[in-house]
């Protein structure tokens, strides 16, 4: 509990900054939607998009049908939010990858580990605290997303549908964020310094993103979709089909594996002091 209190103090500033940035960007994008919805723009986009190759539309996850359509409020949200989700994944990964190594890099582990706590308790407190911070960030982001989309919705967009569909995206993506958080924790047990955390997080998240793009563009590489969590979390896909049972099972198993690996590695590790 005390470890969690100490940990949360160091996370609040980052949480505030990420949340404000998210809010500003979401509002900014949402404000563009009314212009997209005008009938002239609808005709123009419809004609242009139908002229583009399906592979290109897939690469940018642009859809012109159903709730995922670029021309309805939920679809427009799903389009721009795919990039926001990448940023959220990086945040989750950075939270995790800094959690354990930062104390060693800053030297504060000597204070913490001189107190009557076990290494297992340190990992648990830090994991719970980071999970809580990530959950707060995600809940606020959900509130802002729904709020801003409702504010700028058009007469054809139903408020109930917007809330329900955005809820669907956020619930499913939360499992993927949990994946990145636990992967980050696992990485945190073997990187040498917290200074490596940002580059490692960016590398891993963008690596998965690129795998997802290649799997869309190249049929012989399409199996790679199943190993790219960022691809699984594409909002327009989540609106269309949702996460498959197989993907949920796979993600859950890998999350448990990373968590178990974190406890095991941290328990046997020589702390850098």
């Amino acid at each position: 509990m005390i470890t969690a209190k100490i940990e949360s103090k160091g996370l609040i500033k980052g949480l505030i900054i990420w949340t404000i940035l998210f809010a500003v960007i979401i509002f900014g994008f949402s404000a563009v939607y009314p212009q997209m919805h005008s009938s002239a723009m609808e005709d123009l986009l419809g004609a242009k998009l139908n002229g583009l190759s399906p592979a290109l539309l897939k690469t940018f996850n642009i859809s012109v049908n159903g709730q995922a359509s670029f021309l309805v409020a939920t679809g427009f949200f799903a389009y721009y939010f795919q990039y926001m989700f990448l940023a959220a994944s990086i945040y989750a990964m950075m939270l995790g990858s800094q959690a354990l190594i930062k104390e060693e890099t800053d030297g504060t582990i000597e204070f913490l580990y001189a107190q009557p706590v076990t290494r297992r308790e340190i990992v648990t407190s830090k994991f719970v605290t980071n999970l809580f911070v990530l959950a707060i960030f995600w809940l606020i982001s959900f509130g802002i997303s729904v709020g801003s989309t409702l504010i700028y919705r058009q007469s054809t967009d139903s408020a109930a549908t917007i809330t329900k569909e955005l809820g669907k995206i956020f619930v499913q993506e939360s499992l993927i964020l949990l994946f990145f958080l636990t992967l980050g924790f696992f990485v945190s047990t073997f990187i040498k310094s917290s200074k490596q955390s940002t580059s490692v997080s960016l590398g891993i998240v963008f690596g998965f993103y690129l795998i997802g793009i290649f799997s869309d563009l190249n049929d012989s590489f399409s199996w790679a979709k199943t190993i790219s969590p960022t691809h699984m979390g594409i909002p327009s896909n989540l609106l269309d089909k949702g996460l498959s049972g197989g993907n949920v099972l796979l993600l859950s198993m890998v999350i448990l594996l990373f968590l178990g690996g974190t406890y095991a590695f941290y328990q046997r590790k020589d702390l850098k002091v």
Partner: protein
Amino acid sequence: MNAIELKGLTKLYKKQAAIDQVDLSVEKGEIYGFIGPNGAGKSTTIKAMLNFIYPDQGTATLLGLDSIKDAKEIRKRTGYVSSDVRFYPNMTTFEILKYVAEFHQLKNGKQQIDYFIELFDIDAKKKMSELSLGNKKKIAITAGILPNPELLILDEPTNGLDPLMQHRLFEELEKYNQKGMTIFLSSHDLNEVQQHAHRAAFIREGKIITVQDITKEKSLGKVITLIGEHIPLSLFEKIGAAILKHQGNETRLFFEGKLQEILPLLADPSIQDFTITNPELEDQFMALYEGGTVK
């Protein structure tokens, strides 16, 4: 049961031994000095004892508990002051000490904190990032002593402290020691070990090379420095004086007998001057670390 029992403790870094087959026994209630130059293996030994790192060989038992299996219980009953004090920069000194009290579930934590704040002249409202090394050291020392542990491990505790605070620290430590606290004092300040420790182990290149009973030396032995040529040293040897050093016209002797026995010999006309002092650990330190042997 000893407070600290190390048996064959070895830690390798890239196949190089940072500490090599370290055997050490610290009795309960002792102030035990741990002496060695930088890089000798003092901090590595302490870190292996406290499970910050895992030894490649050997065992460490603290207060009868295994350093790995019972790490949490050991830390409940052991205080530790690190040589390199680094705290959460945005916390105030009071917050740090409050957390220590909470970790150890101290009933009179606030009172205890207030006592040390006054003793060490700590500014409770200052953030850790605003403190000098000496002030951080005071917080580290307070955090170590605050839970009133059975065993206190200090790694270079006076580094950065001014002489007044050093004096207060040792006064306090002596008080706690008299109440039964065992103190393990790792230092390269030979004077503080000599003044306060009962015994001291010397470590060189990761190996314990000797353990000295300082109390005995303090009460029994004297170092006599003689200036002069053709001094009849055989007469001094006859009464049990050992020659520590003989260079030019200066001779240093170690004598454990009664001073009355040696005083008549000091009247010899060949002796131009002499001094009688307590034996310095430095004499042994220099002998040990410059490749000589302990007499």
